[in-house]
């Protein structure tokens, strides 16, 4: 053994911090109890239903849930905050109403003659 090796051996690597034991062991206990939530897809389902062999059908359900989740818009604006399902429904109704309004002619335009007229029913209401 060279002198350098002897000198290096004299140094003692830093010991593991005393608080880590409690953290690790508590983490292991907690981790094994809730570990199903750390997984996704098949692992998630297997963790939920250990010992069962119907993972295929459960995976289908999982995929449907995932598809529905992906299909739900997270916000009206692309960078906006997430919205709830109820808010989404409300926004959708509002959008449908506005589209319906747009489709209803409010003005009758005669391009050939360069003039327009307001429908009679609008004159009555306003």
């Amino acid at each position, binding site marked *: 053994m060279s002198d*350098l090796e002897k000198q290096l051996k004299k140094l003692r690597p*830093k*010991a*593991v911090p005393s608080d880590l*034991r409690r953290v690790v062991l508590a*983490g*292991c206990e907690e981790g094994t109890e809730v570990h199903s939530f750390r997984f996704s897809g098949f692992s998630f389902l297997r963790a939920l239903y250990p010992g069962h062999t119907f993972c295929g059908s459960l995976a289908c359900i999982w995929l449907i849930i995932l598809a529905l989740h992906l299909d739900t818009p997270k916000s009206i604006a692309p960078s906006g905050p997430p919205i709830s399902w109820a808010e989404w429904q409300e926004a959708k109704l509002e959008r449908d109403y506005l589209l319906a309004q747009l489709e209803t002619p409010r003005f009758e335009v005669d391009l050939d003659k360069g003039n327009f007229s307001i429908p009679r029913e609008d004159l009555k209401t306003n």
Partner: protein
Amino acid sequence: MRERLPLDRLYDEHANALFGFLLNLTRNEADSRDLIQELFLKIARKPDLLDHAENPKAFLLRSVYHLFVDLIRHRQSRDKMEEAVALETPLLFENPKTGNDLEWSAGVSRALGELPEDQRAVLHLKVWEGCTFAEISLILSIPVNTAASRYRYALDKMETLLRPVYKELYE
């Protein structure tokens, strides 16, 4: 099959070796803590992992080495800056009593940082864990000859880096 040790006894027997090894590799205490936590969580979820291991210490060192390699790959693709910060101030050894020894300890820590990770891993296992080259080859998944040559390269480089420090402090 070996007798299965409870997790707390396993921790008590091997945590120091794992922590020292990880600290030398990651050069960051928080990462070392996280990797130890990750390893023990894996064992807690699959307690039969160690049942067929002939040498539990080598198995655990090998497992944390793989976790370290995963961490490095993840970092390299994600955040090199963070890694650079982690390499700055390592405290790898217990504080010695005298000032000269303290300087020596700091010098060795710095010099270890200059080594490539694969050489550092071999050097640590050989010098501070007393592993044979056969055990090192098992832990790091490399041929025995490669382990031996990496050790030789690491020692040569450490000698070059530490000679001026040693002369200044002890001669």
